């Protein structure tokens, strides 16, 4: 099918590149989605001291390693952006592969962690804390998956040195996913 890339896409009346502007609007909508979950969780957390006792059963080590993995993959994303900025699409693609590797590692650790928790009897229906735990982390994990898939798509054009601005945009999304986890980590794991 013929691709039609309109002139509209190339205009920049606001001074911000179109892709980036759209991405920030997307992040705005994501902020309110995660904000809704986190605000609901926080209200319950502050009013229910028993959440702290249940949070003690979470695996802080897994959470810490996952934070480290996401921080590192964020670094890879920004290095990819740096390479793309210098016009080196191949290098950018390489760094994006590292970022995807980080996403996969994050998901594997998450899977192992959840498996162990479910085996210990802490399922999504065990208590409101565990419901929030699985829901919030699950919504976040779905964003990790989505980000990794989009990165796969970006890599295809980046390695041909095309659409290099997409490397920055997917990186920005990835940093947002990272920031969400930065807040989820203390909320779900550390605060007892």
């Amino acid at each position, binding site marked *: 099918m*013929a691709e039609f890339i309109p002139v509209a896409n190339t205009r920049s009346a606001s001074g911000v590149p179109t892709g980036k502007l*759209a991405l920030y609007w997307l992040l705005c*909508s994501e902020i309110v989605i995660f904000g809704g979950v986190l605000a609901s969780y926080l209200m319950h957390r502050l009013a229910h001291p028993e959440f702290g006792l249940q949070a003690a059963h979470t695996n802080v080590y897994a959470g810490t390693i996952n934070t480290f993995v996401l921080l590192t993959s964020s670094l890879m994303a920004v290095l990819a952006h740096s390479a793309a900025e210098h016009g080196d699409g191949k290098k950018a693609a390489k760094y994006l592969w590292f970022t995807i590797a980080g996403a996969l590692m994050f998901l594997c650790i998450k899977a192992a962690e959840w498996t162990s928790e479910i085996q210990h009897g802490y399922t999504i229906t065990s208590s*409101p804390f565990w419901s929030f735990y699985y829901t919030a982390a699950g919504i976040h994990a779905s964003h990790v998956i989505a980000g990794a898939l989009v990165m796969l798509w970006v890599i295809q054009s980046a390695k041909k040195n095309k659409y290099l601005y997409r490397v920055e945009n997917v990186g920005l999304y990835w940093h947002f996913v990272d920031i969400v986890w930065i807040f989820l980590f203390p909320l779900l794991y550390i605060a007892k």
Partner: protein
Amino acid sequence: MNAPAHGHDHVHDDGGHHHHHEMTFVEKYIFPTDHKYIGKQYLLTGMLMAVFGGFFAYAFRMQLAWPGSDIPLFGHMSPAEYNAAVTNHGTIMIFWVAMPVLIAAFGNFLIPLMVGADDMVFPRLNRLSYQIFLVSAIVIVASLFVPGGGFGGAWTAYPPLSGDSAYNLTPLGSSLWLVAVALEFVAFLVGGINFIVTAMNARAPGMKWTDVPMVVWMICIASILFMASVGPLMAGAVMLLFDQTLHTGFFDPRQGGDPILWQHLFWFFGHPEVYVVLLPATGMVAEVVAVHSRKKLFGYKTILFTAVGTGVLSFFVWAHHQFIAGIDPRMANIFTITTVLISIPIAEMMFLYIATLYGGSIRFTTPMLWALGFIFAFLIGGVTGIPLGASGADIYLHDSYFVIAHFHFTFFPIAFIGTFTGLTHWFPKMFGRMMNETLGKIHFWGTIIAVHCLFLPMFVLGLAGHHRRIYDYTNFPELSTPFLTNIGIFATVSLLVLLAFQFVFVFNFFYSMFKGPVAEANPWKAGSLEWQCPSPPPHGNFGEHLPTVYRGPYEYSVPGRDKDYWPQSEPA
């Protein structure tokens, strides 16, 4: 400055595809990326869904007027079917009729044309938005036919009723309903980003923010409102879906959850949602009033500020839907104040529209009649909202037919009168043919009279204590006196008349689409950009040379010019 570089990239890189203008039928109509076709897809899907919504309205009004009788085309109505009908009438009319038609159809069709662009900034994302929307529409219709029947817990879906199939008895219907609503939100988030970015970035050279037509502004403000308000409900929808399917206890008090939380999550979105659909309709009315009275809008910036003010304020009022729902009564005081204050910007907006008529040369064309009808009906809807927003009076009026009458006097003008305003005005641009004025006027007068006969009596029913969503009022002796019963029958008969007049529109719409007189490029002699290209606009809208803007969109009757309009793209 980077823009040409990007454009360069795009033209040369499409993975081996090359650009050609002749498109196959499938490309053009089934999977189009052209904003005009996507807009028309939204329009026709919305109109089709309106048939469902209208049919439900017909069915449950018949049940209310003649309880227990066999309803033609429906048969006997059970309480479960009644609940499913009222629930899905509300859901479909708001999420699958008002939103797709007002925001998506007109937004898609008008924004690129009005800002002088050749398409949306992300045409394929735009197509994706419609496809997700179509899936959501299929899911909501499918939810009516699953075992157990459609979801019947009201469009607000308050848990625990909606969260536990032991209470609502519709295990599949309620989950599918929720999935459909969530998918619809995703579709409009994607579409909304596209609208906002198009209006922000793809404006024609020379188009300052005060040169943007009002309807574009309104659709963008509405999209921003939607985007900023829907997040908590998206999160809530996931939580409620888990409650339904996995039996978690987010909203189930037996497991330590809180049903009030859902009400907040819902209405934090639900109230701005009213303005999400209202603003595009008022934008279209502004366009039509200006064009057909040959007048500049009275205070362009003030109208804009009232719209922004209404939008922002709409985030601070949601709990007036919950005054008596068990929220802390002290909070109700704050929300009463904010709710009553929202009357200031919205009343001012209506004043400014009426002031636009001052000194004009009003042509009573069909679109103008609809626009004037909107102002008239919306005035009724607006003033009857005040008793509901004032907490003291709301104690009695809450969840009564007064509420129904009030919000139908807002939503009917928005969703239908607004749509008819836009459709009759932009029909020549959409389809390249004129609609029949005589049939249009018959349709207008029939509709406007019938709709007042339908909803004005409901104010009386509400004051007499009729509650909403009651299957059969004969169970309540106080509510089934002959006087009240006759009012109900009168309303139902008015509905039948209203529905009958819609056939006039449907005939006019499809007949004119194929057989109407061919329209010139600018039949209304309007100044905004969409009228400066052929009717209907070709692929790419303006041909080789996209327009440059020199002035505002409402330069009508400028002294010293022989023509009473001044196209935005005409060099000085």
